[in-house]
């Protein structure tokens, strides 16, 4: 399957500093949960609101469209990884783009990842301050999350995989509480379909993709996953279908609960919906939902922290990982604190970071793939002479 010449070429590359990294093996189930836990995070709570704003009741169509696009991008990612065995993203950058451009883009990647990490911190503290702990200073909440992330990372990638798989058990609670919401569904709220035309739906696709970001993690852990390329591709598609299913559940339950007009009044529709329910044993299901959701957020944050620290480590060609992780954690912490709490600033910052998401998660890996193919063609062309 793989081009033997290509392999030989890559074997010469210095990658000793990552030998320990490649010693780990991840099962496909763990791979599945690593991706799912990274993708599902902060977005859950405000996704229906964002979709409703641009796409009205057709938001769920946008979401499916977004997922299809992400699946296409991930297929291209897979092509790239398939053709560069035993290489993760940062190695590819150097091997394909050349040393200095590679190093520069690695740095940019690291900065992008940590910028996302900071955004996650900001959004999470905003929700907590709004719903649970009104007076708790932001830095305390952030410090806890950063500490949890660092503690998770301090093991090997295997620990990360195991922990994510374990935490995924908690998602059952999220799913059950959302399914409970379907009881009061009014299907009428998602009709009429498509009357607004195609434009709002396409705008909604943008929002949808933003909530699906995080799939770039595949580019780093792909070489560690056990199994053939085909099996791994299957797993990648399974993750996307799972995430799509979960988000559709979120969107459906809230859309059909509130209706188009109401949802624009509640920026956190999921929480408002759960708040309305009463049980004889406990009330305020939303508080429990947030508690479980914090775990999902932590895993997303940890992944970004991990990726950015890993990039920095690779740039400096260092053997040790933790110093860079700690450095990046501090960067995220300070960045999140300086952006502060102004709604507008947060939104602006979020917009900018998400735009870069298209560049780093979508375009750049595809460019890498193109360059690789062009070179390969040249190579085989000259070889046949």
């Amino acid at each position, binding site marked *: 399957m793989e081009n033997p010449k290509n392999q030989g070429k890559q074997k010469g590359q210095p990658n000793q500093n990552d030998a320990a990294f490649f010693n780990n093996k991840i*099962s496909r*189930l*763990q791979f599945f949960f690593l991706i799912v836990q990274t993708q599902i995070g902060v977005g859950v709570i405000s996704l229906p609101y964002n979709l409703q704003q641009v796409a009205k009741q057709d938001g769920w169509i946008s979401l499916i469209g977004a997922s299809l696009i992400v699946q296409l991008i991930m297929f291209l990612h897979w092509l790239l990884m398939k053709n560069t065995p035993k290489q993760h993203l940062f190695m590819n950058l150097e091997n394909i783009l050349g040393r200095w451009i590679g190093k520069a883009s690695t740095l940019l990647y690291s900065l992008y990842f940590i910028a996302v990490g900071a955004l996650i911190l900001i959004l999470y503290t905003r929700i*907590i301050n709004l719903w*649970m*702990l009104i007076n*708790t200073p932001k830095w*305390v*909440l952030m410090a*806890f*999350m950063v500490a*949890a992330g660092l*503690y*998770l990372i*301090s*093991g090997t990638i295997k*620990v990360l*995989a*195991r*922990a994510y*798989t*374990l*935490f995924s058990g908690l998602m059952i609670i999220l799913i059950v509480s959302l399914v409970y919401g379907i009881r009061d569904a009014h299907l009428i709220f998602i009709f009429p379909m498509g009357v607004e035309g195609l434009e709002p739906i396409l705008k909604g696709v943008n929002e949808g993709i933003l909530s699906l970001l995080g799939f770039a993690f595949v580019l780093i852990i792909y070489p560690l996953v056990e199994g053939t390329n085909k099996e791994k591709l299957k797993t990648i598609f399974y993750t996307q279908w799972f995430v799509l299913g979960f988000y559709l559940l979120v969107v459906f339950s809230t859309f059909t609960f509130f209706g188009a007009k109401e949802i624009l009044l509640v920026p956190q529709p999921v929480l408002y919906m759960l708040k309305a329910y*009463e*049980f*004889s*044993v*406990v*009330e*305020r299901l939303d*508080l*429990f939902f*947030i*508690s*479980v959701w*914090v*775990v999902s957020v*932590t895993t997303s944050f940890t992944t970004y922290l991990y990726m950015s620290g890993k990039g920095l480590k690779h740039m400096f060609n260092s053997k040790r990982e933790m110093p860079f992780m700690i450095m990046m954690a501090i960067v995220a912490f300070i960045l999140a604190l300086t952006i502060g709490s102004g709604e507008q600033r947060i939104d602006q910052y979020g917009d900018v970071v998400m735009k870069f998401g298209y560049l780093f998660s979508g375009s750049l890996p595809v460019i890498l793939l193109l360059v690789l193919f062009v070179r390969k063609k040249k190579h085989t062309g000259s070889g046949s002479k």
Partner: protein
Amino acid sequence: MGYRRRKSRRDKLIEEQPGNEADVKEPSQPSFSQLSQNIEYLTKALKHSNDLKIRILQDGQAALLFFETLSDQEKLQANIFTPIESGNFDSISKLPNGKKTDDLEEALKVLLRGHALYIEEGNKSLVYFTVTTTYNRNVKEPDNEKVVRGSHEGFVENIMININLIRKRLEHRDLTIKYFRVGKKTNTNIAIAYMDGITNPELVKEIKKRIKSVTADTILSPGFMEEFIEDNPMSPFPQTLSTERPDRVIANVMSGKVALLAEGSPTVLILPSTFFMFYQSPDDYNSRWVSGTFIRIIRLMSFLIAIGLPAMYIAIIGFHFEVIPDDLVSPVKSAIEQIAYPPFVEAFIMVIIIELIREAGIRLPQPVGQTIGIVGGLVIGDAVIRAGLISNLMVIVVALTAIASFVVPSHELSTTLRFLTFPLIILASTLGFIGIVFGIMFILIHLVKLESFGNPYFAPVSPLRIKDLKDTFVRLPLFKLTNRPNDANPINEKSMGESREWKRSGKSKKSRQTKGTTQPK
């Protein structure tokens, strides 16, 4: 860890020396031919201890040395003097039950083991006889691991009797016992027991390596060994299961684990251990599987109650009062309104009081201990509520927590649970639910990271091994547990074949018969 890969199947990797290599490097001193020189050397080496007895025989031509505190006078008589008196042998050195040595250092060692040493003038070879005295108690049921059904035997302080208890239950040639001597001064005899052909040889190798690298002067009990050989001594969680029950040891040895026994202690360590092993009790297997499963689920729920209940209560009272349903609001409110202290202080006082009562109850003789329990539990509990120091709800919560922590069948883990309540209480009183979530997340991450002899501690939940879940949260019928748990990476995974064929084949035969016309009416 290296040995988790099973590439070296059952090769002769571990065919090393059976233990006493540490002794090889010890100094040796060839014996002298003169009797007085020999005796002088030995008494000097033993610092002229008063309990070393020297009996001069044959008019000063020979001597018998022994520790009167270690040797049994009757055995001395039966093994040495009775055969001589019967006239069959003319000299003690020619007795068939004597062992010979010509090394004075070795002679020292056997003397300290309770043997009697016979030295003759003009003869370099020293003869020693086993006359060791032992004081044993009965193999009665251990107090801290009682079961309702099943064996009521327990280990004792003598390692030989303990190994005997194991061998009696496991009559198979693959049961392997290896001796080690650890503790430079105490020279403690320890042994490991495992099933060759089931246990992973790499695991055995790793355990031997760790045992041999212990250089401490004093090794008194397996508890000492535990701290020297476990993976992460900083962790609050015990990483080796300790038990005093032979049946529990057998069950674990048969699933590919290694048992570590030590002279002078009835406690046996099981290596490696997983978190869920601490929640398995022999009772689960002795009773029917449905009730065994039920009890085990109750036990695992007690884990959540033990570490989370006080924290949850404090978080709800302090931060999220809105979680309480309407009907409960007024009783809860009236209970906590009159209390002067914040719930955090309340909980802290109560938890400490419970710990005090428990510790006092253990240390005192039993009748007094019970009194303390009643005085502490009932009188203090009641008075503290009446005095308005602590709300009655808090007393309920803390008492429930304490009870839940005692449900664990392992004393170590129970202590760990009660200890872990404190950080969670602190977190809950500062950040409410969010604090609890982060606290539990930290505990879970720690559990996931932890390894016991290279095997994941939180298995089979993380890493997820669905096959092994058969005997984790539930206990399926024994004939369904066809594979050994993967905790210790056994090289022989299958533990049974088809055992209930008669049911299936009987059925099919019946159906065939009913189809045919030969059925008599």
